[in-house]
C-alpha cells in the first residue's frame, strides 16, 4: 500500500523528547553522583514495576505518533490521491478495532445492540427486538448464548500463549544474569528484575487475551456512534502523554534559566523575575488557561488556511494547550531553583571559582546546574501525573483539547450524559476510569520513588 508520511508538530516534539531522553540517559550514566541515585531507583521494586507499566503506555503513545495518509485507489497513470484522514501506526495495528463500528451503544461482550429496534424476522414480520451486532460475536452464529464459554476458552488460549512468551523473556533475563554473576539469584540482583518480570507477566496475561478477544467482541463495549471503547482508550493515551510530557519540555528551559539567573545574579534581575512569577502565580491557573485558550481559538478560527486536515488543527490546539500549561506551571520549579541557587552561590567552592575569575555563565553551567539536577528530575516526574489529571478537567470544562480529539477528558465528558440514560451506559466511563487510574497511579508511584532516590535529604 502506498502512503504519504504526515508529520504533526506534536510528533516532532514527542520524538525530540525521546531523543533528549536518550541523550540525557547517556550523559547521566557518566555522572557518578546521579548514577548512584539511578542505581537506587533501579533497586526499588515499586519503581521498576510502575516504570514497566509506564513504558507500555509510552509505547502505545509512540506508535500513535507515527502518522500517515493512505493512498486512495486510483487508475494507473493518474496522479496519486491521498485520503483526507490522517492515520497512525497504532491505527493500522488496531485496524479491526477502528473499522468495526456498530450502530450505537452495545455492552461489553454483547452480541446484540443496547436499544430495541424494529427488525424484520422471516416468517413473523416486523418485531421490536434487540438486533444482532454487525461485528460483536458474529462468529458464534446460532450459538449466541455461548458467549461466556467461548470468551473464556479464547481468553485461556491467549493467556497460555502469553505465559509461554513470558517464560521465554524470563529465561533470557535469567541466563544473562547468570552469565554476569553466576552465584546471584534473580531476587538478589542489583536491578529489581523480579518486579519487572512479575509486572510483565501480569500485563501480558491481561493484554494478550484482551486483544485476542477484541477480534471477536467489543470487550469494553461501544459508544454512542458505535465506536469500540477499547480503541478510544488507546487513542487517549497519546493525548495524555503529550500533555504530560511536552508541557514539561516547554516549561523546563524557562524555569531553569530564570530560576538560576534570579538566584545567582540577585539584585534587579531577581526583582524582575520574582515580579513576573508572582504576577503569573496570582492569576488562578484555570482562568489564565481559559483566557489563553479562548484567544487561541479566535486565532485558529480566523486562519483556517493554515491547516490542510482536521488532524492538524486539533494537533495545533493540543500543542497550544501544552504551551499555555507550561507557561502557567513553570513558576513553582523556578522558585525552588532560585532558592537553591541562592544557597549554592554562597558555598566556598563557588566563591573560590569567582575569586579565580571564572565567568558567571561558566560557573552556572559547570557548578550550579549539575547541583540542581536532582530538583529538576524530581519536579519533572512529580508534575506528570498532575498534568494528565488536569487535561481531563480542562477538556471537560471545554478549554482542553479539540472536541474531535480523543482524550480521557472528552471520554469522561460523554460519559456524563450516558449515566443519565435509562438503562445506564456505564462501560465507557468504567474503561476510561480504569485506564486513567492505572496510568496516573503508575506515574505517582514512580514519582515517589524518584523523589526518594534523588532527594539528598532522604539519603
Amino acid at each position, binding site marked *: 500500500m502506498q502512503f504519504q508520511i504526515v508529520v504533526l508538530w506534536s510528533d516532532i516534539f514527542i520524538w525530540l523528547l525521546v531523543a533528549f531522553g536518550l541523550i540525557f540517559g547517556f550523559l547521566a550514566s557518566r555522572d557518578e553522583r546521579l548514577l548512584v541515585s539511578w542505581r537506587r531507583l533501579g533497586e526499588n521494586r515499586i519503581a521498576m514495576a510502575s516504570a514497566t507499566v509506564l513504558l507500555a503506555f509510552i509505547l502505545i503513545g509512540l506508535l500513535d505518533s507515527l502518522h500517515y495518509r493512505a493512498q486512495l485507489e486510483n487508475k494507473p497513470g493518474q496522479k496519486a490521491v491521498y485520503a483526507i484522514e490522517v492515520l497512525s501506526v497504532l491505527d493500522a495495528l488496531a485496524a479491526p478495532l477502528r473499522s468495526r463500528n456498530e450502530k450505537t451503544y452495545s455492552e461489553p461482550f454483547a452480541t446484540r445492540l443496547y436499544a430495541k429496534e424494529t427488525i424484520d424476522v422471516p416468517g413473523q414480520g416486523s418485531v421490536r427486538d434487540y438486533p444482532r451486532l454487525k461485528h460483536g460475536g458474529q462468529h458464534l452464529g446460532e450459538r449466541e448464548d455461548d458467549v461466556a464459554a467461548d470468551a473464556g476458552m479464547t481468553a485461556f488460549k491467549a493467556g497460555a500463549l502469553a505465559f509461554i512468551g513470558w517464560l521465554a523473556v524470563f529465561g533470557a533475563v535469567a541466563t544473562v544474569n547468570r552469565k554476569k554473576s553466576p552465584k546471584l539469584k534473580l531476587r538478589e540482583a542489583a536491578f529489581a528484575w523480579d518486579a519487572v518480570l512479575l509486572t510483565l507477566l501480569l500485563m501480558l496475561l491481561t493484554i494478550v487475551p484482551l486483544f485476542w478477544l477484541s477480534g471477536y467482541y467489543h470487550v469494553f463495549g461501544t459508544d454512542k456512534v458505535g465506536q469500540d471503547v477499547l480503541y478510544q482508550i488507546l487513542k487517549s493515551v497519546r493525548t495524555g502523554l503529550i500533555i504530560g510530557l511536552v508541557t514539561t519540555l516547554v516549561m523546563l528551559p524557562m524555569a531553569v534559566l530564570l530560576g538560576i539567573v534570579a538566584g545567582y545574579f540577585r539584585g534587579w534581575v531577581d526583582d524582575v523575575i520574582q515580579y513576573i512569577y508572582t504576577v503569573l502565580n*496570582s492569576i488562578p*491557573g484555570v*482562568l489564565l488557561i*481559559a483566557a*489563553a485558550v479562548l484567544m487561541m481559538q479566535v486565532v485558529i478560527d480566523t486562519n483556517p488556511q493554515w491547516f490542510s486536515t482536521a488532524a492538524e488543527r486539533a494537533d495545533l490546539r493540543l500543542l497550544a494547550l501544552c504551551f499555555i500549561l507550561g507557561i502557567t506551571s513553570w513558576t513553582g520549579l523556578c522558585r525552588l531553583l532560585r532558592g537553591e541557587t541562592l544557597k549554592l552561590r554562597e558555598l566556598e567552592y563557588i566563591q573560590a571559582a569567582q575569586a579565580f575569575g571564572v565567568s558567571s555563565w561558566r560557573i552556572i553551567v559547570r557548578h550550579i546546574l549539575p547541583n540542581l539536577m536532582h530538583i529538576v528530575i524530581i519536579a519533572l516526574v512529580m508534575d506528570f501525573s498532575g498534568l494528565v*489529571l488536569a487535561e481531563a478537567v480542562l477538556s471537560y470544562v*471545554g478549554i482542553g483539547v479539540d472536541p474531535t480529539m480523543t482524550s480521557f477528558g472528552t471520554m469522561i465528558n460523554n460519559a456524563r450524559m450516558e449515566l443519565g440514560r435509562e438503562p445506564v451506559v456505564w462501560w465507557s466511563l468504567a474503561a476510561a476510569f480504569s485506564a486513567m487510574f492505572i496510568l496516573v497511579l503508575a506515574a505517582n508511584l514512580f514519582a515517589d520513588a524518584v523523589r526518594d532516590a534523588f532527594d539528598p535529604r532522604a539519603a
Partner: protein
Amino acid sequence: MLAYIVRRLLYALPILIGVNLVTFALFFVVNTPDDMARMQLGVKRVTPEAIEKWKVERGYDKPLLINSEAGGLASVTDTIFFEKSARMFVGDFGRAEDGRDIAREIGARMLPSLAIALPTFILGLFVTITFALTLAFFRATAFDLWGVVLCVAAMSISGLFYIIGGQYLISKVWRLVPISGFGAGLEAWRFLILPVLIGVVSGIGSSTRWYRTIFLEEITKDYVRTARAKGLPEALILFRHVLRNGMTPILTQSIVAIPTLFMGALVMESFFGIPGLGSYTIDAINAQDFAVVRSMVFIGAVLYIVALLLTDISYTVADPRIRLQ
C-alpha cells in the same frame, strides 16, 4: 500590624497592575477587536458594517493605548485599555454579551460560591489533619502503610470521577439529595451537602500525605522527645504540641489550595448547577464572552492576593513567635 497590612496592600498594587497588563495583552494584542467581533457574530452574519456596529456598541472602536485624536487627558482615557482594563481597579467591569452588568452579577454570585468553597475548605482541612495525625500516631505500622497506599490510590483518581460517581450513587441511585440546583436561604443546604462532601473526599489523598510528612518531620524534634520523657501520653503530644508546631507549613499549604479551590468550584458548580462564580465563568467560556472571562481573571487575582495576606496574618495567630513588622 496595621502598618504591615497597609504596606502589603501597597505591594499588591504593582502585582495587580501586572495582572491587568497580562490580561490586556492576552485579549487585545494577540487578537484585534475585529477578530472578536467575527467570532461573536458567527460566520453567517459577518459583514464589515456588522463588525463596526458590534465594536461601537461595546466600546471596542477606540484605539488600543493612545488616542491621538482626542486632546489632553482624554488621549489616555478615551482608549480601550483605559475603558476595559484600567477601570477594573474601581470595580467597573463593564457589560457582558447579554447586556448585564458584570459587577452586579459577580456580587449576586459570590454568596453561592462561598457557600460551597468555605465549608469544603474548612471541613477538608479538619478531616485531612485528623487523618494525617492518626496516621502519624500509628506510624510504621500496617495501618500507616495501608493508609498511605490508600492515599496514593485516592490521589490517582481524577476529581471528575469523584463528582460523577458521587452524583450517580448518592443522588440517582439512593435518592438522598437532589441531583442539582440551588435554593434560596437555609433551604440551600440540601443542594450543598453533596458538592461539599465530594470536595472534601477528593482532596483527602494528596493533602493527608503532605500533612503526614510534616507531622513526621516534626515528631523527630527535641521538644517531642522531652515531652515523651516527661511521660505525656503520645496522643496528647501529637494533637496538642505537634499539631500546633506543624501549623505554619499547613497554613502555607492552604494558600496553594485557594486557587485549586477555584478550579474545583469551576467544575463542581457547573456539575451541580449552582449559580456561583465558577459556573458563571464556564458559561462565559462556552459563550466566548471575553468581557466576563477578563473580569474573572482579575477577580481571581484579587482573591489570591487577599488570601496571601490572610495567610500571613494567620501565622501570627498560630505562632506567637512570628511578628509582622
